[in-house]
């Protein structure tokens, strides 16, 4: 199952899994920033930077013994969300276009350089997904929350994330059972016809479950916050990894500029 695959990979004995979660979260954020801001302008320099970051991600995945097929496959499954935004870069709508499809006083035309911009946006989105998925595949979710709590992310938000992570799959299982029950009683019902009612039922059940969980917490003496932010041990090796990875990331971002890439 999807969740088991992710959890199994996060607990696997890869070398990346042993790194301090704060280091991995920090490096993921740095990589995402490098992807976002390092390739925002058109030109070969941006593409070289993206290629360098892709190589860095591939090396990291190899270091963590991440199953390549699934890592890449799952990342592609999330890509259609970015496709819609990329498609918008292909066209320009407004007055003053000589050729195109007239729309009232405006014209829909092909955006100059839109193809390259759309492709670059897709590449950035894909690399961002790969980087985030790599973090999920090499770090157990509670450890990610521990790292985020050290970064002073609000506790309320982290508690909500922890409970969503715990109960999302319970909810999905319930949803599947409801869908199956409906199918068995009414033949093939298209999801768009049954979806609303199932969501309403799931919402009602979730409310009831939330109440029971709240009572369970009270009965076990809950006094405020959930325990997030366990003891994390930063080792000398982690400091070395931090220096090395920062240098590699900086090289991936800066090398194309000094290498004479056209900007």
């Amino acid at each position: 199952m999807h969740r088991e695959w992710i959890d199994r990979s996060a607990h696997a004995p890869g070398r990346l899994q042993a790194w301090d979660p704060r280091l991995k979260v920090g490096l993921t954020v740095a990589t995402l920033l490098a992807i976002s801001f390092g390739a925002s302008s058109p030109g070969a320099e941006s593409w070289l930077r993206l290629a360098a970051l892709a190589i860095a991600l591939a090396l990291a995945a190899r270091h963590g013994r991440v199953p390549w097929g699934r890592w890449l496959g799952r990342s592609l499954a999330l890509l259609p969300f970015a496709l819609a935004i990329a498609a918008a870069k292909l066209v320009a709508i407004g007055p003053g276009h000589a050729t195109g499809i007239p729309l009232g006083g405006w014209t829909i035309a092909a955006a100059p350089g839109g193809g390259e911009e759309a492709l670059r946006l897709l590449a950035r989105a894909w690399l961002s997904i790969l980087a985030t998925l790599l973090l999920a595949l090499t770090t157990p979710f509670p450890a990610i929350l521990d790292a985020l709590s050290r970064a002073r992310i609000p506790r309320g938000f982290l508690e909500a994330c922890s409970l969503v992570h715990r109960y999302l799959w319970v909810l999905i299982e319930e949803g599947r059972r409801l869908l199956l029950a409906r199918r068995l009683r009414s033949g093939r019902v298209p999801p768009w016809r049954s979806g609303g009612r199932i969501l309403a039922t799931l919402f009602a059940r979730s409310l009831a479950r939330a109440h029971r969980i709240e009572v369970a917490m009270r009965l076990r003496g809950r006094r405020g916050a959930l325990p997030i932010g366990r003891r994390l041990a930063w080792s000398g090796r982690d400091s070395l990894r931090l220096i090395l990875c920062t240098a590699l990331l900086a090289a991936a971002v800066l090398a194309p500029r000094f290498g004479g890439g056209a900007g």
Partner: protein
Amino acid sequence: MSAPLAPLAIEARSLHFHYPDGTPGLASVDLQVAPKERWGIAGANGSGKSTLLHHFAGVYAAEGHLSILGIEATKRGLAEIRRRVGFLFQDPEDQLFLPTVAEDVAFGPRQLGLSEPEVEKRVASALARLGIAGLAERPCHHLSGGEKQSAAIAGVLALEPEILVLDEPSNDLDAGARRRLIDFLRGWEGTLVIASHDLELLLESVDRLLLLDRGAVVAVGPPAEILRDRALLSRHGLEEPPSLRALRLAREAEKKAP
């Protein structure tokens, strides 16, 4: 000078309860449970079993009189009752709200403000007692039904409760997990209250049985005596458990034999 008498584990007099919509939940329940006694509560759906258990666990303040371990179940006493009573929910999913088994079992002791070595000691002891030490680092959502139930019980045991209150503990358990549960219950040395549809489990695990119907107590006595009374059970929407039925049929066949 004589030693002071230990308070009753549970004492209810004219305990009643109405749900917020006005539906009656309990109707004048009288009950006395001595320390270390083992009680079962049986009844059809909607008879008030869970509501009564919630009162024992300190979920609701009592209407009428209810004291748990000598503490009045008023709003002021509920926190202390919750600290001393361990409650197991019908669905262990509701009880396992932290990511891993060890973290979940440690939740209660940490809320008590115990030191970290003491928390770890209690977690290890609770897991070992249920034979699930190997599950400590497993994510809760990867456990089987029986493992979830054991982990939920471990979370309760880590609080070292004086009274253990269990709501339908054998729900969704396979035969092996159910047997392990019964073995654990039989070995439990504190006060025990179990509400269940599983009359066989009650027959094996408790010494006294209370039969509820529409929130009222209709019978109290030794489990085998009450569960043999087919007319009584039938009047209140229950059926004789299979083991007693088999025994009765065998005896009847013996009598008929020439």
